[in-house]
């Protein structure tokens, strides 16, 4: 195990506390009718933050599924700010600006794994030094894209880390329905790449596993499959009622990554109640700013027509023109 310095461990715990708070705030925005369906992070804080701290935000990329963006503060403030925009349904939410090396949420399960492999392949072709880490869930491992991409990653020796977040559930489908394999790490045998299972509730363990995989990746030794085992502590999304299928005793027995990390911080003698309260107050204020900024982010409805191509086709330009005329006529004002 890496001997992470106290200030690093504190910073990791700070981001984990932030992730849960940010996620809860976005969840509540949905309940208030201010955001769309979203997937809370509860249970995944350690594995996201642990991975983020093992990567280099200046050279490495993260391709999330959709649950992880609240924990990637280390990669830049744009990640959360744009995730809030995304959650309230603003088109700019999918635009995480340069130079932040994080992709927006991916809703189509496992499709981001081929993207990650292609990105890693292209980075190597360009002589770039970094690697790519891609998240997907246990349910997503049943998708063809997962197998196709991991297989090709192995053939290419691509500098990519595939992190399977095994949180026990794919909405209501348990892991036992997803696979007969003993665990998800052993699927790596089919690809001829290393596979490891790590305690996904232990941020430091995840950090170490990702750091190892990263060393291999950037040294040209190829991809690694990491299975991070945790338990989904909340619903799949705001639209889900897990009491219909999650056995309460399983939920009660599940480790909470926040508590695991708090215990570690306490063990190191670098925790106090006041410190944690300050961290939460800072995160709360930071989130408040993000929400205010998102809800006041201007939106011109004609932006619907932007970025289909670099330049609109004549047909699209015409549709845009007719739309703009109709919207202006119906609102009696310019675009807002």
């Amino acid at each position, binding site marked *: 195990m890496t001997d992470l310095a106290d200030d690093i461990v504190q910073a990791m715990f700070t981001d984990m506390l932030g992730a849960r708070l940010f996620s809860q705030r976005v969840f509540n925005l949905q309940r208030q009718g201010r955001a769309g369906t979203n997937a809370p992070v509860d249970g995944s804080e350690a594995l996201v933050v642990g991975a983020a701290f093992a990567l280099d935000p200046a050279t490495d990329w993260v391709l999330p599924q959709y649950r992880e963006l609240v924990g990637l503060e280390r990669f830049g403030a744009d990640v959360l700010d744009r995730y809030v925009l995304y959650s309230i349904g603003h088109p700019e939410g999918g635009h*995480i*600006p340069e130079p932040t090396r994080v992709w927006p949420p991916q809703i189509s399960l496992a499709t981001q794994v081929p*993207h990650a492999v292609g990105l890693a*392949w292209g980075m190597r*072709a360009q002589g770039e030094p970094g690697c790519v880490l891609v998240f997907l869930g246990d349910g997503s491992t049943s998708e063809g*894209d997962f197998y196709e*991409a991991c297989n090709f990653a192995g053939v290419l020796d691509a500098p990519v880390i595939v992190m399977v977040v095994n949180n026990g559930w794919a909405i209501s489908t348990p892991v036992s329905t997803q696979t007969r394999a003993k665990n998800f790490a052993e699927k790596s045998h089919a690809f001829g790449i290393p596979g490891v299972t790590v305690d996904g509730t232990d941020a430091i363990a995840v950090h170490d596993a990702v750091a190892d995989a990263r060393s291999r990746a950037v040294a040209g030794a190829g991809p690694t499959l990491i299975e991070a085992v945790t338990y989904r502590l909340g619903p799949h999304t705001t639209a889900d009622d897990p009491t219909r299928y999650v056995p309460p005793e399983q939920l009660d027995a599940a480790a909470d990554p926040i508590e695991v990390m708090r215990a570690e911080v306490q063990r190191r003698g670098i925790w106090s109640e006041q410190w944690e309260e300050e961290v939460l107050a800072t995160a709360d204020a930071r989130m408040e700013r993000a929400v205010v900024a998102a809800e006041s982010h201007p939106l011109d409805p004609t932006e619907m027509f932007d970025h289909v191509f670099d330049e609109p*086709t004549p*047909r699209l330009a015409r549709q845009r023109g007719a739309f703009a005329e109709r919207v202006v006529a119906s609102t009696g004002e310019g675009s807002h």
Partner: protein
Amino acid sequence: MAVVNMLEAINHTLHAEMARDERVMVFGEDVALNGGVFRATEGLLDAYGAQRVVDTPLAEGVIAGTAVGLAAAGMVPVPEIQFLGFSYQAFHQIAGQIARLRYRTRGRFEVPITIRSPFGGGVRTPELHSESLEAQYANIPGLKIVLPASAADAKGLLATAIRDPNPVLFLEPLRGYRMIKDEMPDGEHLVPFGRARTVAEGADVVVIAWSFQVELARRAAAQLADEGVSVRVLDLRTLVPLDVASIVEAVEACGRVVVVQEAPLTNGFASEIIATINDEAFYSLEAPIQRVSGYDTPYPVGMLEDHFVPDVERIVAGIRRAVEVEA
């Protein structure tokens, strides 16, 4: 100027574009060592090396999907889907990811991907090798759909496609690979998208077609010229973007229209052409627009395919239907 067939034009252009821009990568099934099952990528591996010309595992979804990541890394991916019917297994990546990456990231990522794929039937391939899926893809916002019908255009349109910062589905007529031969301009030759080409001049009726059907329409026009019917043939070249102005001009000039497609009738791109004419040039019509197409059946096996695929005779019959109506 040299007379070459369409495959030679494509191969020539791939060589030229890889030489011009070292970011261009060609990858797919059997494209490197074997030079492609039709030899479209012959010689690329030797000329540009194994880092840029890559045989992939047999998985169309990841061929398309890795193109997304390569593009984001700054490369110019030119993946090949060996037959368009195989793109069913890549549809989720092409439609769901490639076509909308620029849109969903509000332009952060450029997507200069050109997917090459042969399509269409008439050459006795096994099942699922002959599908004409241009209308399915044309219904996906964010994809340009390019279908050359001559060797010269194969060069000019492919070069334009590879240099275009948007995703292009570049569909090559399987049946025309060696049959279509014409003079290919030397040196730099770029054909812009969205400009239809008048293949044959005529005043009585216009046949609107794309890809191999242009060749058939040209033959039908030549046959009817002997009977004194003056047939214009318009090759659309690209379905997205669509050259509406040239369609309107031809309809206004001729008043009678036949649209030819190899795809099944229902929801084919011919329907879109006819709807466009309805919107833009309805009062210039002197007769109902005729469609010549495949049937609403799955693409049939070898002993039936000549009955399915439009031929010169069916196009001639369609033209006769269009011209025999009294104005």
